[in-house]
């Protein structure tokens, strides 16, 4: 059986206390644990070996969802709780679809929204046992120097594999980061991410992601499409998050399209989204043009399931599926084909 390394477990009651513990230790020495579904496997594989694990389990005020100007989601909400929230189903359909496709029901009972947003980047050369990584002389992300995905690369190419982040960026979400040092700051979620497999978050090591702030959904509709081999368990090898503010006749007033699992951060296909503005989503040519534009943003590397060229190839199709669903088309048959689930709720 695989064992955790030794660590000290702490479970304070406020985010400020969590931040204080983090601040008192060097980066990597104390790590935050929410659901544990990302950190604990990493610790068992010795990818991370913190001396202290700071659990968020007793931090009560990050476990609520509340209405405000839009919605405020506690980062400690489990993914299962998100999928059960009728307000999210109603107004932020894409977020429901994203959360409902993360991992599997057991892991969604454990994993949290904040945990998924901070999910460690993934790579077939990195998400391996200590012994396996020893056999390749380790890699740039941990203990080694070379990125085996592309040995000439000067940065780590591990893949952003969060499902929540692309969708929440498309929804225009912001996140609150709390720290002892400066109390807290609110940043657009997109600014949380960096296209670097190692330093993929701008979160300082003493900061705790406590809340996600969703803008009002008024007039917006959203969808999330995920590609993976199996109907559950698997991380995305491609995802398309799309949100649009639609007028009559599916005229696009504003739109955002974000691709997941094609780089070390969620990739915004801003030009693809912009190309739709002023057009109706019933215009198949407009959808095709947006799909072409989005395609150019996808730069998948050979470090996940499926072959590289195929993952790139199907980007157009997945953007098209997303935009067709966005315009109100019944895409359940296609969803069942790829995702084995319907995931369609009226918005």
């Amino acid at each position, binding site marked *: 059986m695989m*064992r955790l390394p030794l660590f000290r477990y702490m479970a304070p009651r406020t985010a400020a206390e969590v931040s204080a513990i983090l601040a008192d230790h060097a980066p990597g020495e104390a790590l935050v644990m929410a659901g544990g579904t990302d950190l604990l496997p990493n610790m068992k594989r010795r990818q991370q070996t913190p001396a202290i694990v700071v659990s968020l389990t007793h931090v009560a005020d990050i476990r609520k969802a509340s209405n405000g100007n839009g919605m405020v989601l506690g980062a400690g909400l489990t993914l299962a709780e998100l999928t059960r929230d009728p307000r999210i189903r109603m107004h932020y359909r894409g977020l429901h679809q994203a959360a409902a496709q993360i991992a599997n029901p057991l892991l969604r009972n454990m994993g949290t929204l904040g945990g998924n947003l901070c999910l460690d980047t993934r790579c*077939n050369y990195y998400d391996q046992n200590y012994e396996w990584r020893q056999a390749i002389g380790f890699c740039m992300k941990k203990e080694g120097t070379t990125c085996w995905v592309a*040995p000439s690369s000067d940065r780590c190419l591990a893949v952003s594999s969060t499902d929540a982040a692309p969708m929440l960026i498309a929804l225009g979400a912001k996140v609150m980061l709390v720290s002892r040092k400066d109390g807290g700051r609110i940043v657009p979620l997109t600014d949380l991410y960096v296209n670097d497999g190692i330093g993929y978050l701008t979160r300082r090591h003493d900061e705790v992601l406590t809340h996600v702030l969703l803008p009002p959904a008024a007039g917006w509709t959203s969808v999330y499409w995920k590609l993976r081999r199996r109907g559950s368990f698997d991380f995305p090898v491609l995802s398309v998050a799309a949100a649009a503010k639609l007028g009559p006749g599916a005229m696009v007033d504003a739109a955002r399209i974000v691709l997941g699992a094609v780089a070390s951060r969620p990739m915004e296909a801003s030009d693809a989204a912009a190309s739709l503005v002023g057009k109706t989503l019933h215009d198949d040519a407009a959808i095709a043009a947006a799909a072409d534009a989005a395609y150019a943003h996808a730069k998948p590397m050979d470090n996940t399931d499926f072959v590289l*060229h195929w993952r790139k190839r199907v980007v157009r199709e997945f953007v098209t599926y997303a935009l067709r669903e966005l315009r109100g088309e019944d895409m359940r048959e296609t969803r069942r084909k790829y995702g084995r689930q319907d995931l369609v709720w009226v918005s």
Partner: protein
Amino acid sequence: MSDPAGPRNTVGRARRRVDGRAKVTGATRFADDVVLPRTVHCKLLRSSVPHGTIRSIDVSKAEAHPGVLLVLTGKDFPIPFGILPVSQDEDPLCRDRVRFVGDPVAAIVARDEATAFDALDLIDVDYEILPTRATPLEAYENPSPRIHEYGEEGNVHKRVSFRFGDTDEAFAASDHVFEDVFFFQGNTHLPIEQHASIAAPDPDGKLTIWSSTQVPHYLHRALARALDMPAAHIRVVACPNGGGFGGKTDPFNHEIVVAKAAMILGRPVKIALNREEVFYCHRGRHPVLMKFKTGVRSDGTITAMHLKTFIDGGAYGSYGVASTFYTGALQTVTYRIPRYRFEACRMFTNKPPCGPKRGHGTPQPRFGQEVQLDKIAEALSLDPADLRLSIVERPGTVTANYMHVQTIGLADCIASVVRRSDWKTRFRKLPHGRGLGLACSSYLSGAGLPIYWNKLPHSGVQLKLDRSGGVTAFCGATEVGQGSDDVLVNIVAEILGIDPLDVRYVTGDTDLTPVDLGSYSSRVTLMMGNAAIQAAERARDLLAGAVSKKLEVPASRLVFSERRVFDAEDPGRGVTFQEAVVLAETELGTLGTTGSYTPPRSPARYKGGGVGPSPTYSYTACVVEVDVDPVTGWIRVPKVWIAHDIGRALNPVLARGQVEGSVYMGLGEALMEEQTFRRLPPRLSPALVHKFPSMLEYKSPTSLDMPEVDTELIEHPDPRGPFGAKEVGQGPLLPVMPAVANAVYDAVGVRIDEVPITPEKILRALDDLAKGKPGRYGPESFPEIRYPEPMLVPTPWEGGDGNAVNDPERQRAAKME
């Protein structure tokens, strides 16, 4: 052998399996659940290099680590081992050479597993790196350095060549000759239970080991040899396996290591492998490249077949010699093939050893054969189901390669799936993107020969009955989920007319139970079942004799049913089962009976003819429906129809479970499972590693990926099977992969001549088709392999007697007889 009147009590009824309660309460004791006082824990240090010689190992720091009790290395294990007598090529811990990443080089025993793990890093191993061979062709083209010092030559482990009749002549006389090359990627068993073993010295100095093994008897032999101990001083207890599928059919290095450690330390030593290590144990499906050349007449009648296979064996022999023969042994038992030529070659490579996974060596050529048959049907404008029906082998036939076929329900199987899938109105008529595919298969009901030469029974059953009315059945067979305990008890209860829950059973324990060769080759139901019938009938006869005297009714008129023994002509006249036992014990003394089974002699007398014969063969037909997206190549299977010729289903619930579990595993192989490896850029690193030894990245279908399966069991009792039963655990896997491939062709018109069949391969083929090229994805060619001169064996219809005419060794032996 069985009662001609057929079963009357429990056989054939859908019942709760006898071990059902234990399995749903968590009470079943798997190997890692065995807890003993004073247990200490073992971890293995495994090679981090794919091929190298060990210059030195320094264990001093590990030995000094607090909590470490013992460190063992290769020098502690001078005797190699291996499942087959001809390939004793594994060391419990590598002595001077490592052959793949994962080969064990040292063992640490510590007070707990965490301490043992920490101490692994304190062992320094100095390797001299050797060149690696990642594919069979690389190994073939680079005979030096040799991965093993034995084998045919270079890195060729085993080569075979046979000719049953003049195939060249038959090809020349054929209306059409089809030549196709196929590739079947390797995959692994992935039992959810990781291998575990716990060994403990007995108070009298003997040794007991509890292990997740499918073959306690073979492990027993291997331990005796490797530890240089008398077998009589070793007890192997095969715990119920949390899934085996052939992956726990070899004796393993970790079993020998903990046994040795327990004897040295004088206390129990446990090892529980992690998932990565299970991938290194492997013994899974061999990657096989194959070429089929098949001659047919215009009506589809096969005139001859020539099959060549080129096999990636991995780093050790395992069952590989048998696997090599199996890549061609069973081509002849489904359809009539009057002349047959078969050549095979297994290579050593620097990867975990391949071995026997469900279907052992036969799913790969079955895939090629069934896909080629689909191509032949289309070329000849025949319906693939009709073509198969017209060439089904006849019952009672001795085939061109001397496999003795008994009952064949294949035509009924085909008719069943054709009817239920509405084949006639849907095949070739569904909209673009939807398709149906059909394929068939056959499998052994137990191998005709054991893995080491002997004339002993293959299975033995003992029964103990006493005045309590209790019956205990003892057998060496091993429960791996397939329901062997249920088969044993079911048969005993049937014959003695008692409730299965009245019977105690003791299985898989080399101290307590008579030998059964193990849970492999689908042998248990037939072989243990026949042994159980013999033991139970002997017990019944003892009781009947005593009851006959008491009731003054002829023994032949006595019926055993509903826990009573009574007069068939006057059912009120009888005694309870317990009274019957008391009467017999009073008359005869302590009661016990035995039964055993040895398979009939095979007509295949040629060298190599020992692989393939079976008491009888099962048959399966399968139709798969697919839904293929013509734009992305995405493939989904909405439904599977399958019919299996089982002879008789002893417990239909379990039988259906075996069929559907086979379909599941077959779909995994067809669509997503693959055991693949990667190199790093050679200028930077010599690494050659398993791509993803994890449950997450090795893709086992989930509950959402599994289609509905419509199963029919075809029951024509086979005289050689217990109550007519044939195998069911493996055969139904075989037709699934080719049926998927054939369905893809029906759906979108491309041929995927390779397994697994993935969206990217389909899309590549569709791209080619759109460009006017052949819509096909698969290997382009078959390499030039130097196979030996063929063993020339005249077929039965040419007056052959099962011997080769050009085998000097056998001819000499024949003269001396």
